[in-house]
Protein backbone atom coordinates (compact mmCIF):
# COMPACT_ATOMS: atom_id res chain seq x y z
CA UNK A 1 0.00 0.00 0.00
CA UNK A 2 1.52 3.23 -1.15
CA UNK A 3 1.22 6.53 0.62
CA UNK A 4 -1.40 8.82 -0.86
CA UNK A 5 0.02 11.49 -3.13
CA UNK A 6 -1.29 15.03 -3.33
CA UNK A 7 -3.18 14.23 -6.54
CA UNK A 8 -4.83 11.25 -4.85
CA UNK A 9 -5.86 13.40 -1.89
CA UNK A 10 -7.33 16.06 -4.13
CA UNK A 11 -9.14 13.41 -6.17
CA UNK A 12 -10.63 11.90 -3.03
CA UNK A 13 -11.70 15.31 -1.77
CA UNK A 14 -13.47 15.97 -5.08
CA UNK A 15 -15.15 12.54 -4.97
CA UNK A 16 -16.34 13.15 -1.42
CA UNK A 17 -17.65 16.60 -2.36
CA UNK A 18 -19.51 15.23 -5.38
CA UNK A 19 -21.02 12.47 -3.24
CA UNK A 20 -22.14 14.83 -0.52
CA UNK A 21 -23.20 17.87 -2.53
CA UNK A 22 -26.57 16.69 -3.92
CA UNK A 23 -27.56 15.54 -0.45
CA UNK A 24 -26.46 18.83 1.06
CA UNK A 25 -28.37 20.68 -1.65
CA UNK A 26 -31.51 18.71 -0.81
CA UNK A 27 -31.36 19.73 2.83
CA UNK A 28 -30.66 23.36 1.88
CA UNK A 29 -33.70 23.47 -0.37
CA UNK A 30 -35.84 22.08 2.43
CA UNK A 31 -35.05 25.19 4.48
CA UNK A 32 -35.72 27.74 1.72
CA UNK A 33 -38.66 29.37 -0.05
CA UNK A 34 -39.77 28.75 -3.62
CA UNK A 35 -38.54 32.23 -4.60
CA UNK A 36 -35.06 31.32 -3.31
CA UNK A 37 -35.14 28.09 -5.28
CA UNK A 38 -35.54 30.06 -8.50
CA UNK A 39 -32.53 32.31 -7.87
CA UNK A 40 -29.54 32.06 -10.16
CA UNK A 41 -27.19 30.88 -8.85
CA UNK A 42 -29.33 28.70 -6.60
CA UNK A 43 -28.88 29.22 -2.85
CA UNK A 44 -26.10 27.22 -1.23
CA UNK A 45 -26.63 28.16 2.41
CA UNK A 46 -29.48 27.11 4.70
CA UNK A 47 -32.46 29.39 5.24
CA UNK A 48 -34.90 29.43 8.13
CA UNK A 49 -38.08 28.05 6.62
CA UNK A 50 -37.76 24.36 7.48
CA UNK A 51 -40.66 24.40 9.95
CA UNK A 52 -42.94 26.18 7.53
CA UNK A 53 -42.10 23.76 4.70
CA UNK A 54 -42.73 20.75 6.89
CA UNK A 55 -46.11 22.19 7.91
CA UNK A 56 -47.06 22.72 4.29
CA UNK A 57 -45.94 19.20 3.41
CA UNK A 58 -48.08 17.68 6.14
CA UNK A 59 -51.03 19.86 5.13
CA UNK A 60 -50.91 18.64 1.52
CA UNK A 61 -53.67 16.09 1.73
CA UNK A 62 -53.29 14.33 -1.62
CA UNK A 63 -49.73 13.30 -0.78
CA UNK A 64 -50.61 11.46 2.47
CA UNK A 65 -47.02 11.90 3.51
CA UNK A 66 -47.28 10.80 7.15
CA UNK A 67 -49.27 7.73 6.14
CA UNK A 68 -46.52 7.02 3.62
CA UNK A 69 -43.77 7.25 6.23
CA UNK A 70 -45.67 5.02 8.61
CA UNK A 71 -46.51 2.48 5.90
CA UNK A 72 -42.88 2.37 4.77
CA UNK A 73 -41.78 1.70 8.33
CA UNK A 74 -44.31 -1.13 8.65
CA UNK A 75 -43.43 -2.65 5.26
CA UNK A 76 -39.65 -2.39 5.65
CA UNK A 77 -39.77 -3.57 9.27
CA UNK A 78 -41.92 -6.62 8.50
CA UNK A 79 -39.87 -7.55 5.45
CA UNK A 80 -36.62 -7.19 7.38
CA UNK A 81 -37.71 -9.38 10.29
CA UNK A 82 -39.09 -12.05 7.97
CA UNK A 83 -36.13 -12.11 5.60
CA UNK A 84 -33.68 -12.38 8.50
CA UNK A 85 -35.69 -15.26 9.99
CA UNK A 86 -36.05 -17.10 6.66
CA UNK A 87 -32.37 -16.56 5.81
CA UNK A 88 -30.93 -17.68 9.14
CA UNK A 89 -33.05 -20.84 9.15
CA UNK A 90 -32.02 -21.77 5.62
CA UNK A 91 -28.43 -20.62 6.17
CA UNK A 92 -28.11 -22.88 9.21
CA UNK A 93 -29.47 -25.85 7.27
CA UNK A 94 -27.18 -25.30 4.28
CA UNK A 95 -24.05 -24.63 6.30
CA UNK A 96 -24.31 -27.15 9.16
CA UNK A 97 -26.73 -29.91 8.20
CA UNK A 98 -26.26 -32.53 5.56
CA UNK A 99 -29.16 -33.50 3.35
CA UNK A 100 -29.52 -34.78 -0.20
CA UNK A 101 -30.03 -32.04 -2.76
CA UNK A 102 -28.51 -29.25 -0.65
CA UNK A 103 -26.11 -28.20 -3.37
CA UNK A 104 -28.78 -28.18 -6.02
CA UNK A 105 -31.15 -26.15 -3.86
CA UNK A 106 -28.50 -23.60 -3.03
CA UNK A 107 -27.46 -23.32 -6.68
CA UNK A 108 -31.10 -22.75 -7.59
CA UNK A 109 -31.15 -19.68 -5.37
CA UNK A 110 -28.31 -18.16 -7.35
CA UNK A 111 -30.34 -18.62 -10.51
CA UNK A 112 -33.40 -17.05 -8.90
CA UNK A 113 -31.32 -14.02 -8.02
CA UNK A 114 -30.88 -13.33 -11.74
CA UNK A 115 -34.60 -13.05 -12.36
CA UNK A 116 -35.72 -9.43 -12.12
CA UNK A 117 -38.91 -10.35 -10.32
CA UNK A 118 -39.98 -6.77 -9.77
CA UNK A 119 -40.33 -6.12 -13.48
CA UNK A 120 -41.17 -9.59 -14.74
CA UNK A 121 -43.78 -10.32 -12.15
CA UNK A 122 -45.62 -7.03 -12.28
CA UNK A 123 -48.57 -8.12 -14.43
CA UNK A 124 -49.33 -11.55 -12.89
CA UNK A 125 -48.60 -10.42 -9.34
CA UNK A 126 -51.04 -7.59 -9.86
CA UNK A 127 -53.68 -10.00 -11.16
CA UNK A 128 -52.99 -12.27 -8.20
CA UNK A 129 -53.49 -9.42 -5.76
CA UNK A 130 -56.68 -8.36 -7.56
CA UNK A 131 -58.12 -11.86 -7.35
CA UNK A 132 -57.20 -12.08 -3.66
CA UNK A 133 -58.72 -8.66 -3.12
CA UNK A 134 -55.46 -7.43 -1.60
CA UNK A 135 -54.72 -4.44 -3.83
CA UNK A 136 -54.23 -1.29 -1.83
CA UNK A 137 -53.19 -3.27 1.22
CA UNK A 138 -49.73 -3.42 2.73
CA UNK A 139 -49.55 -7.22 2.67
CA UNK A 140 -49.67 -7.02 -1.13
CA UNK A 141 -46.43 -5.02 -0.98
CA UNK A 142 -44.79 -7.07 1.74
CA UNK A 143 -45.22 -10.63 0.49
CA UNK A 144 -43.31 -10.46 -2.84
CA UNK A 145 -40.37 -8.75 -1.10
CA UNK A 146 -39.91 -11.74 1.20
CA UNK A 147 -38.23 -13.59 -1.68
CA UNK A 148 -34.64 -12.60 -1.05
CA UNK A 149 -32.02 -15.01 -2.33
CA UNK A 150 -29.19 -12.76 -1.29
CA UNK A 151 -30.17 -13.13 2.37
CA UNK A 152 -30.02 -16.93 2.22
CA UNK A 153 -26.60 -16.84 0.56
CA UNK A 154 -25.18 -14.32 2.97
CA UNK A 155 -26.40 -16.25 5.99
CA UNK A 156 -25.17 -19.62 4.64
CA UNK A 157 -21.74 -18.07 4.34
CA UNK A 158 -21.95 -16.41 7.71
CA UNK A 159 -23.14 -19.49 9.63
CA UNK A 160 -20.35 -21.55 8.08
CA UNK A 161 -17.69 -19.32 9.56
CA UNK A 162 -19.35 -17.97 12.71
CA UNK A 163 -20.60 -21.25 14.19
CA UNK A 164 -17.91 -23.88 14.93
CA UNK A 165 -18.87 -27.44 14.01
CA UNK A 166 -17.76 -28.53 17.49
CA UNK A 167 -20.49 -26.41 19.04
CA UNK A 168 -23.21 -28.06 16.95
CA UNK A 169 -21.73 -31.49 17.64
CA UNK A 170 -21.55 -30.90 21.38
CA UNK A 171 -25.19 -29.81 21.44
CA UNK A 172 -26.14 -32.99 19.56
CA UNK A 173 -24.27 -35.17 22.05
CA UNK A 174 -26.23 -33.45 24.79
CA UNK A 175 -29.37 -34.63 23.02
CA UNK A 176 -30.53 -31.27 21.60
CA UNK A 177 -32.89 -31.40 18.65
CA UNK A 178 -32.04 -29.52 15.45
CA UNK A 179 -34.42 -26.66 16.14
CA UNK A 180 -33.08 -26.36 19.67
CA UNK A 181 -29.55 -26.08 18.27
CA UNK A 182 -30.72 -23.35 15.92
CA UNK A 183 -32.33 -21.39 18.71
CA UNK A 184 -29.74 -21.80 21.50
CA UNK A 185 -26.43 -22.28 19.68
CA UNK A 186 -26.66 -20.81 16.19
CA UNK A 187 -28.76 -17.67 16.59
CA UNK A 188 -26.70 -16.15 19.43
CA UNK A 189 -23.53 -16.53 17.33
CA UNK A 190 -25.12 -14.83 14.31
CA UNK A 191 -26.02 -11.47 15.82
CA UNK A 192 -23.47 -9.30 13.96
CA UNK A 193 -24.24 -10.90 10.59
CA UNK A 194 -27.97 -10.61 11.21
CA UNK A 195 -27.57 -6.91 11.97
CA UNK A 196 -25.80 -6.24 8.65
CA UNK A 197 -28.37 -8.23 6.69
CA UNK A 198 -31.19 -6.46 8.52
CA UNK A 199 -29.80 -3.03 7.68
CA UNK A 200 -29.27 -3.87 4.02
CA UNK A 201 -32.74 -5.36 3.61
CA UNK A 202 -34.38 -2.46 5.44
CA UNK A 203 -32.70 0.10 3.17
CA UNK A 204 -33.54 -1.84 0.04
CA UNK A 205 -37.19 -2.25 1.00
CA UNK A 206 -37.58 1.34 2.18
CA UNK A 207 -36.39 2.51 -1.24
CA UNK A 208 -38.62 0.27 -3.40
CA UNK A 209 -40.73 2.17 -5.89
CA UNK A 210 -42.23 0.26 -8.84
CA UNK A 211 -44.26 -2.43 -7.09
CA UNK A 212 -45.81 -0.17 -4.40
CA UNK A 213 -46.62 2.35 -7.14
CA UNK A 214 -48.64 -0.28 -8.96
CA UNK A 215 -50.32 -2.18 -6.15
CA UNK A 216 -51.11 0.58 -3.64
CA UNK A 217 -53.74 3.30 -3.96
CA UNK A 218 -52.66 6.95 -3.84
CA UNK A 219 -54.50 7.49 -0.56
CA UNK A 220 -52.54 4.75 1.21
CA UNK A 221 -48.99 5.09 -0.18
CA UNK A 222 -45.50 4.22 0.97
CA UNK A 223 -43.12 7.13 1.32
CA UNK A 224 -41.55 6.74 -2.14
CA UNK A 225 -44.88 6.77 -3.96
CA UNK A 226 -46.03 9.64 -1.78
CA UNK A 227 -43.09 11.66 -3.10
CA UNK A 228 -43.93 10.62 -6.65
CA UNK A 229 -47.46 11.96 -6.03
CA UNK A 230 -46.00 15.24 -4.75
CA UNK A 231 -43.80 15.37 -7.83
CA UNK A 232 -46.63 15.00 -10.32
CA UNK A 233 -49.26 17.10 -8.52
CA UNK A 234 -47.06 19.81 -6.97
CA UNK A 235 -43.95 19.60 -9.14
CA UNK A 236 -43.57 23.36 -9.23
CA UNK A 237 -43.56 23.56 -5.43
CA UNK A 238 -39.88 22.63 -5.32
CA UNK A 239 -39.20 23.23 -1.67
CA UNK A 240 -42.09 21.10 -0.50
CA UNK A 241 -40.94 18.29 -2.77
CA UNK A 242 -37.43 18.62 -1.38
CA UNK A 243 -38.71 18.71 2.19
CA UNK A 244 -40.55 15.45 1.61
CA UNK A 245 -37.51 13.89 -0.04
CA UNK A 246 -35.26 14.99 2.82
CA UNK A 247 -37.69 13.57 5.37
CA UNK A 248 -37.78 10.27 3.47
CA UNK A 249 -34.00 9.76 3.51
CA UNK A 250 -33.33 11.07 7.00
CA UNK A 251 -34.23 7.84 8.85
CA UNK A 252 -31.88 5.85 6.63
CA UNK A 253 -29.06 8.35 7.08
CA UNK A 254 -29.37 8.13 10.85
CA UNK A 255 -29.16 4.33 10.71
CA UNK A 256 -26.29 4.53 8.23
CA UNK A 257 -24.24 6.87 10.39
CA UNK A 258 -24.91 4.88 13.58
CA UNK A 259 -24.01 1.51 12.02
CA UNK A 260 -21.70 2.75 9.27
CA UNK A 261 -18.67 0.79 10.39
CA UNK A 262 -20.59 -2.50 10.42
CA UNK A 263 -22.24 -1.82 7.06
CA UNK A 264 -18.97 -1.05 5.31
CA UNK A 265 -17.39 -4.08 6.97
CA UNK A 266 -20.26 -6.33 5.96
CA UNK A 267 -20.25 -5.14 2.36
CA UNK A 268 -16.51 -5.60 2.03
CA UNK A 269 -16.55 -9.04 3.66
CA UNK A 270 -19.28 -10.19 1.30
CA UNK A 271 -17.37 -8.83 -1.68
CA UNK A 272 -14.17 -10.69 -0.90
CA UNK A 273 -16.00 -14.00 -0.88
CA UNK A 274 -17.81 -13.33 -4.13
Amino acid at each position, binding site marked *: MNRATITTRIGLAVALALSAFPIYYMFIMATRSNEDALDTPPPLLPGGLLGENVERLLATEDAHFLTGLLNSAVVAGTVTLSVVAISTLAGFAFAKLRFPGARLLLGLILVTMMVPLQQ*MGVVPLYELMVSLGWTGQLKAVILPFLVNGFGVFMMTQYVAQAVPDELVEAARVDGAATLGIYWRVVLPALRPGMAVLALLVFMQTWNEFLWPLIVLNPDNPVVQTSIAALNSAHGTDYVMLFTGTAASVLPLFVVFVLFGRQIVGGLMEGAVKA
Partner: protein
Amino acid sequence: MNIAPPQPARPPRPGPQARRAVGRPSPGGGRWSRFDLRGIPYLLVSPYYLLFAVFGVFPLGYTLWISLHDWELAGDKSWLGLGNYAELVADAEFWNAVGNTLGIFVLATVPQLLLALMLANALNKRLRGRLILRLGVLLPLVTSVVAVAVIFSQLFSRDYGLVNWLLGTPITWQNEKWSSWIAIAVMIDWRWTGYNAIILLAAMQTIPRDLYEAAAIDGASPRRQFWRITVPMLRPTMVFVVFVSTIGGLTLFAEPVMFEGNPMMTGGTTGQYQTVAMFVVKEGFRDFDMGYAAAAAWLLFVLILLGTLVNYLFTRRIR
Protein backbone atom coordinates in the same frame (compact mmCIF):
# COMPACT_ATOMS: atom_id res chain seq x y z
CA MET B 1 -31.75 -5.06 -7.27
CA ASN B 2 -29.71 -6.43 -4.45
CA ILE B 3 -27.65 -3.93 -2.61
CA ALA B 4 -24.85 -6.31 -1.71
CA PRO B 5 -23.00 -8.84 -3.83
CA PRO B 6 -24.07 -12.46 -3.97
CA GLN B 7 -21.99 -15.12 -2.37
CA PRO B 8 -20.38 -18.02 -4.21
CA ALA B 9 -22.57 -20.74 -5.62
CA ARG B 10 -20.85 -23.58 -3.80
CA PRO B 11 -22.25 -24.32 -0.37
CA PRO B 12 -19.61 -24.62 2.30
CA ARG B 13 -18.77 -28.24 2.98
CA PRO B 14 -20.83 -29.61 5.85
CA GLY B 15 -18.58 -30.29 8.77
CA PRO B 16 -17.52 -33.87 9.48
CA GLN B 17 -19.59 -33.74 12.65
CA ALA B 18 -22.74 -33.05 10.72
CA ARG B 19 -21.97 -35.97 8.45
CA ARG B 20 -21.43 -38.33 11.33
CA ALA B 21 -24.54 -37.04 13.05
CA VAL B 22 -26.66 -38.20 10.13
CA GLY B 23 -25.77 -41.82 10.65
CA ARG B 24 -26.14 -41.73 14.40
CA PRO B 25 -29.52 -41.01 15.88
CA SER B 26 -29.41 -39.28 19.21
CA PRO B 27 -30.06 -41.29 22.38
CA GLY B 28 -33.80 -40.60 22.26
CA GLY B 29 -33.88 -42.85 19.18
CA GLY B 30 -36.93 -43.74 17.15
CA ARG B 31 -38.91 -42.10 14.42
CA TRP B 32 -38.75 -38.56 15.80
CA SER B 33 -34.97 -38.38 15.87
CA ARG B 34 -34.76 -39.73 12.34
CA PHE B 35 -37.17 -37.03 11.23
CA ASP B 36 -35.16 -34.48 13.18
CA LEU B 37 -32.07 -35.33 11.15
CA ARG B 38 -33.55 -36.16 7.76
CA GLY B 39 -36.69 -34.05 7.59
CA ILE B 40 -35.98 -30.90 9.57
CA PRO B 41 -33.30 -29.59 7.16
CA TYR B 42 -35.89 -29.46 4.37
CA LEU B 43 -38.34 -27.80 6.72
CA LEU B 44 -35.75 -25.14 7.52
CA VAL B 45 -35.06 -24.24 3.89
CA SER B 46 -38.69 -24.58 2.75
CA PRO B 47 -39.96 -21.04 3.53
CA TYR B 48 -37.71 -19.50 0.88
CA TYR B 49 -38.70 -21.99 -1.79
CA LEU B 50 -42.41 -21.79 -0.98
CA LEU B 51 -42.31 -18.01 -1.25
CA PHE B 52 -40.28 -18.23 -4.42
CA ALA B 53 -42.76 -20.68 -5.94
CA VAL B 54 -45.65 -18.31 -5.25
CA PHE B 55 -43.99 -14.98 -5.97
CA GLY B 56 -41.31 -16.09 -8.45
CA VAL B 57 -42.11 -19.19 -10.47
CA PHE B 58 -45.85 -18.55 -10.67
CA PRO B 59 -45.51 -14.97 -12.00
CA LEU B 60 -42.97 -16.05 -14.62
CA GLY B 61 -45.17 -18.85 -15.91
CA TYR B 62 -48.32 -16.80 -15.69
CA THR B 63 -46.70 -13.89 -17.53
CA LEU B 64 -45.92 -16.30 -20.35
CA TRP B 65 -49.55 -17.51 -20.39
CA ILE B 66 -50.95 -13.96 -20.37
CA SER B 67 -48.55 -12.94 -23.12
CA LEU B 68 -50.18 -15.46 -25.45
CA HIS B 69 -53.57 -13.78 -25.07
CA ASP B 70 -55.37 -10.59 -25.84
CA TRP B 71 -55.75 -9.99 -22.14
CA GLU B 72 -57.58 -7.11 -20.56
CA LEU B 73 -57.73 -6.78 -16.82
CA ALA B 74 -61.51 -7.01 -16.45
CA GLY B 75 -62.51 -7.68 -20.07
CA ASP B 76 -61.75 -10.07 -22.89
CA LYS B 77 -59.18 -12.81 -22.65
CA SER B 78 -58.85 -14.46 -26.04
CA TRP B 79 -56.08 -16.68 -27.35
CA LEU B 80 -53.61 -14.97 -29.66
CA GLY B 81 -50.76 -17.43 -29.80
CA LEU B 82 -47.63 -15.53 -30.66
CA GLY B 83 -49.65 -12.56 -31.90
CA ASN B 84 -48.45 -10.19 -29.18
CA TYR B 85 -44.84 -11.09 -29.89
CA ALA B 86 -45.29 -10.64 -33.63
CA GLU B 87 -46.81 -7.21 -33.04
CA LEU B 88 -44.10 -6.32 -30.55
CA VAL B 89 -41.25 -7.23 -32.88
CA ALA B 90 -42.74 -4.85 -35.45
CA ASP B 91 -43.45 -2.10 -32.89
CA ALA B 92 -41.06 0.80 -33.41
CA GLU B 93 -41.94 2.17 -29.98
CA PHE B 94 -40.76 -1.05 -28.33
CA TRP B 95 -37.45 -1.06 -30.18
CA ASN B 96 -37.01 2.59 -29.34
CA ALA B 97 -37.38 1.62 -25.65
CA VAL B 98 -34.86 -1.20 -26.09
CA GLY B 99 -32.43 1.20 -27.75
CA ASN B 100 -32.86 3.75 -24.97
CA THR B 101 -32.35 1.12 -22.27
CA LEU B 102 -29.15 -0.21 -23.87
CA GLY B 103 -27.89 3.28 -24.70
CA ILE B 104 -28.37 4.61 -21.18
CA PHE B 105 -26.86 1.40 -19.80
CA VAL B 106 -23.65 1.81 -21.80
CA LEU B 107 -23.48 5.55 -21.21
CA ALA B 108 -23.80 4.97 -17.46
CA THR B 109 -21.75 1.82 -16.97
CA VAL B 110 -18.52 2.56 -18.83
CA PRO B 111 -17.61 5.81 -17.02
CA GLN B 112 -18.91 4.37 -13.79
CA LEU B 113 -16.52 1.42 -13.87
CA LEU B 114 -13.53 3.58 -14.72
CA LEU B 115 -14.37 6.04 -11.97
CA ALA B 116 -15.00 3.25 -9.46
CA LEU B 117 -11.65 1.70 -10.30
CA MET B 118 -9.82 4.99 -9.80
CA LEU B 119 -11.72 5.70 -6.60
CA ALA B 120 -10.98 2.24 -5.20
CA ASN B 121 -7.31 2.66 -5.99
CA ALA B 122 -7.25 6.02 -4.20
CA LEU B 123 -9.10 4.61 -1.18
CA ASN B 124 -6.54 1.82 -1.01
CA LYS B 125 -3.70 4.24 -0.23
CA ARG B 126 -2.48 4.92 3.26
CA LEU B 127 -4.39 7.88 4.67
CA ARG B 128 -6.22 9.14 7.71
CA GLY B 129 -10.00 9.21 8.04
CA ARG B 130 -10.52 6.09 5.97
CA LEU B 131 -13.86 5.17 7.53
CA ILE B 132 -15.23 8.66 6.92
CA LEU B 133 -14.15 8.48 3.26
CA ARG B 134 -15.73 5.08 2.78
CA LEU B 135 -18.97 6.14 4.42
CA GLY B 136 -18.92 9.31 2.35
CA VAL B 137 -18.75 7.53 -1.00
CA LEU B 138 -21.46 5.08 0.12
CA LEU B 139 -23.87 7.81 1.18
CA PRO B 140 -25.48 8.11 -2.29
CA LEU B 141 -26.44 4.43 -2.15
CA VAL B 142 -28.48 5.06 1.00
CA THR B 143 -30.34 7.83 -0.80
CA SER B 144 -33.43 6.36 -2.48
CA VAL B 145 -33.69 6.34 -6.26
CA VAL B 146 -36.73 8.59 -5.96
CA ALA B 147 -34.79 11.13 -3.91
CA VAL B 148 -31.90 11.01 -6.39
CA ALA B 149 -34.30 11.65 -9.24
CA VAL B 150 -35.94 14.58 -7.45
CA ILE B 151 -32.62 16.22 -6.63
CA PHE B 152 -31.06 15.74 -10.05
CA SER B 153 -34.19 16.73 -11.95
CA GLN B 154 -33.91 20.06 -10.16
CA LEU B 155 -30.15 20.31 -10.77
CA PHE B 156 -30.83 19.65 -14.47
CA SER B 157 -33.87 21.92 -14.77
CA ARG B 158 -33.72 24.39 -17.64
CA ASP B 159 -34.17 27.81 -16.09
CA TYR B 160 -33.02 27.47 -12.51
CA GLY B 161 -30.83 24.38 -12.51
CA LEU B 162 -27.29 24.45 -11.22
CA VAL B 163 -25.95 22.45 -14.16
CA ASN B 164 -27.11 24.91 -16.80
CA TRP B 165 -25.86 27.77 -14.65
CA LEU B 166 -22.40 26.20 -14.29
CA LEU B 167 -22.19 25.35 -18.00
CA GLY B 168 -23.73 28.64 -19.07
CA THR B 169 -26.16 26.74 -21.30
CA PRO B 170 -29.96 26.99 -21.68
CA ILE B 171 -30.49 23.27 -22.34
CA THR B 172 -33.84 21.59 -21.71
CA TRP B 173 -32.30 18.31 -20.68
CA GLN B 174 -35.51 16.30 -21.17
CA ASN B 175 -35.95 17.37 -24.78
CA GLU B 176 -33.29 15.47 -26.67
CA LYS B 177 -32.11 11.90 -26.56
CA TRP B 178 -28.49 12.72 -25.86
CA SER B 179 -29.18 15.21 -23.10
CA SER B 180 -31.82 13.14 -21.30
CA TRP B 181 -29.58 10.09 -21.48
CA ILE B 182 -26.70 12.03 -19.97
CA ALA B 183 -28.86 13.37 -17.13
CA ILE B 184 -30.20 9.88 -16.33
CA ALA B 185 -26.72 8.32 -16.59
CA VAL B 186 -25.41 10.93 -14.15
CA MET B 187 -28.13 9.95 -11.65
CA ILE B 188 -27.22 6.27 -11.94
CA ASP B 189 -23.50 6.89 -11.66
CA TRP B 190 -23.87 9.21 -8.70
CA ARG B 191 -25.75 6.53 -6.81
CA TRP B 192 -23.66 3.48 -7.72
CA THR B 193 -20.02 4.52 -8.31
CA GLY B 194 -19.12 4.64 -4.62
CA TYR B 195 -20.66 1.25 -3.96
CA ASN B 196 -18.75 -0.33 -6.81
CA ALA B 197 -15.57 1.33 -5.59
CA ILE B 198 -16.04 -0.25 -2.15
CA ILE B 199 -16.55 -3.70 -3.70
CA LEU B 200 -13.43 -3.26 -5.85
CA LEU B 201 -11.52 -1.94 -2.85
CA ALA B 202 -12.37 -5.08 -0.90
CA ALA B 203 -11.03 -7.20 -3.75
CA MET B 204 -7.90 -5.03 -4.02
CA GLN B 205 -7.08 -5.67 -0.41
CA THR B 206 -6.94 -9.41 -1.02
CA ILE B 207 -4.18 -9.07 -3.63
CA PRO B 208 -0.97 -10.46 -2.05
CA ARG B 209 1.35 -7.64 -1.14
CA ASP B 210 4.53 -9.45 -2.22
CA LEU B 211 3.35 -9.12 -5.83
CA TYR B 212 3.72 -5.37 -5.47
CA GLU B 213 6.97 -5.65 -3.54
CA ALA B 214 8.50 -7.82 -6.23
CA ALA B 215 7.33 -5.40 -8.91
CA ALA B 216 8.74 -2.45 -6.97
CA ILE B 217 12.11 -4.20 -6.70
CA ASP B 218 12.02 -4.67 -10.46
CA GLY B 219 11.54 -0.93 -10.73
CA ALA B 220 7.87 -0.84 -11.79
CA SER B 221 6.22 2.53 -11.20
CA PRO B 222 2.96 2.72 -9.19
CA ARG B 223 1.09 3.41 -12.43
CA ARG B 224 2.59 0.33 -14.05
CA GLN B 225 1.84 -1.76 -10.96
CA PHE B 226 -1.77 -0.60 -11.13
CA TRP B 227 -2.26 -1.68 -14.74
CA ARG B 228 -0.13 -4.83 -14.61
CA ILE B 229 -1.07 -6.24 -11.20
CA THR B 230 -4.15 -4.57 -9.74
CA VAL B 231 -6.39 -4.49 -12.80
CA PRO B 232 -5.78 -8.11 -13.91
CA MET B 233 -6.26 -9.41 -10.37
CA LEU B 234 -9.57 -7.55 -10.12
CA ARG B 235 -11.09 -9.09 -13.21
CA PRO B 236 -13.44 -11.58 -11.50
CA THR B 237 -14.78 -8.82 -9.26
CA MET B 238 -15.15 -6.51 -12.25
CA VAL B 239 -17.23 -9.18 -13.96
CA PHE B 240 -19.43 -9.38 -10.89
CA VAL B 241 -19.83 -5.61 -10.82
CA VAL B 242 -20.75 -5.57 -14.50
CA PHE B 243 -23.23 -8.39 -13.86
CA VAL B 244 -25.03 -6.43 -11.16
CA SER B 245 -24.96 -3.28 -13.29
CA THR B 246 -26.43 -5.21 -16.21
CA ILE B 247 -29.47 -6.36 -14.27
CA GLY B 248 -29.94 -2.92 -12.74
CA GLY B 249 -29.39 -1.12 -16.03
CA LEU B 250 -31.72 -3.25 -18.13
CA THR B 251 -34.55 -2.87 -15.61
CA LEU B 252 -34.10 0.90 -15.30
CA PHE B 253 -37.35 2.52 -14.20
CA ALA B 254 -37.52 4.98 -11.30
CA GLU B 255 -34.97 7.52 -12.56
CA PRO B 256 -36.58 8.18 -15.96
CA VAL B 257 -40.10 8.11 -14.47
CA MET B 258 -39.24 10.75 -11.89
CA PHE B 259 -37.23 12.71 -14.45
CA GLU B 260 -40.36 12.87 -16.59
CA GLY B 261 -42.28 14.27 -13.62
CA ASN B 262 -45.71 12.99 -14.64
CA PRO B 263 -46.86 9.37 -14.49
CA MET B 264 -47.43 9.02 -18.23
CA MET B 265 -44.59 6.49 -18.69
CA THR B 266 -43.91 7.74 -22.21
CA GLY B 267 -40.38 8.96 -21.46
CA GLY B 268 -40.66 12.38 -23.03
CA THR B 269 -42.78 13.70 -25.88
CA THR B 270 -41.30 11.34 -28.46
CA GLY B 271 -40.09 8.64 -26.09
CA GLN B 272 -36.55 10.02 -25.89
CA TYR B 273 -35.89 8.19 -22.64
CA GLN B 274 -38.64 5.60 -22.36
CA THR B 275 -37.07 2.38 -21.06
CA VAL B 276 -38.40 -1.16 -21.51
CA ALA B 277 -39.62 -1.32 -17.89
CA MET B 278 -41.56 1.92 -18.50
CA PHE B 279 -42.95 0.47 -21.72
CA VAL B 280 -44.22 -2.59 -19.81
CA VAL B 281 -45.92 -0.47 -17.17
CA LYS B 282 -47.40 1.88 -19.76
CA GLU B 283 -48.90 -0.90 -21.88
CA GLY B 284 -50.18 -2.85 -18.89
CA PHE B 285 -51.33 -0.23 -16.46
CA ARG B 286 -52.08 2.84 -18.55
CA ASP B 287 -53.38 1.30 -21.77
CA PHE B 288 -54.60 -1.85 -19.92
CA ASP B 289 -53.22 -4.18 -22.58
CA MET B 290 -51.89 -6.79 -20.16
CA GLY B 291 -51.12 -9.40 -22.80
CA TYR B 292 -48.94 -6.98 -24.73
CA ALA B 293 -47.22 -5.83 -21.55
CA ALA B 294 -46.56 -9.43 -20.52
CA ALA B 295 -44.98 -10.18 -23.90
CA ALA B 296 -42.73 -7.13 -23.50
CA ALA B 297 -41.80 -8.29 -19.99
CA TRP B 298 -40.78 -11.67 -21.35
CA LEU B 299 -38.67 -10.11 -24.05
CA LEU B 300 -37.03 -8.00 -21.34
CA PHE B 301 -36.29 -11.19 -19.43
CA VAL B 302 -34.73 -12.73 -22.55
CA LEU B 303 -32.64 -9.58 -22.91
CA ILE B 304 -31.40 -9.95 -19.34
CA LEU B 305 -30.65 -13.65 -19.82
CA LEU B 306 -28.61 -12.79 -22.90
CA GLY B 307 -26.74 -10.14 -20.91
CA THR B 308 -26.08 -12.64 -18.14
CA LEU B 309 -24.97 -15.27 -20.62
CA VAL B 310 -22.47 -12.91 -22.23
CA ASN B 311 -21.21 -12.16 -18.74
CA TYR B 312 -20.93 -15.83 -17.87
CA LEU B 313 -19.00 -16.71 -21.01
CA PHE B 314 -16.71 -13.78 -20.33
CA THR B 315 -16.07 -15.01 -16.77
CA ARG B 316 -15.25 -18.51 -17.94
CA ARG B 317 -12.75 -17.21 -20.45
CA ILE B 318 -10.99 -15.24 -17.77
CA ARG B 319 -10.65 -18.26 -15.53
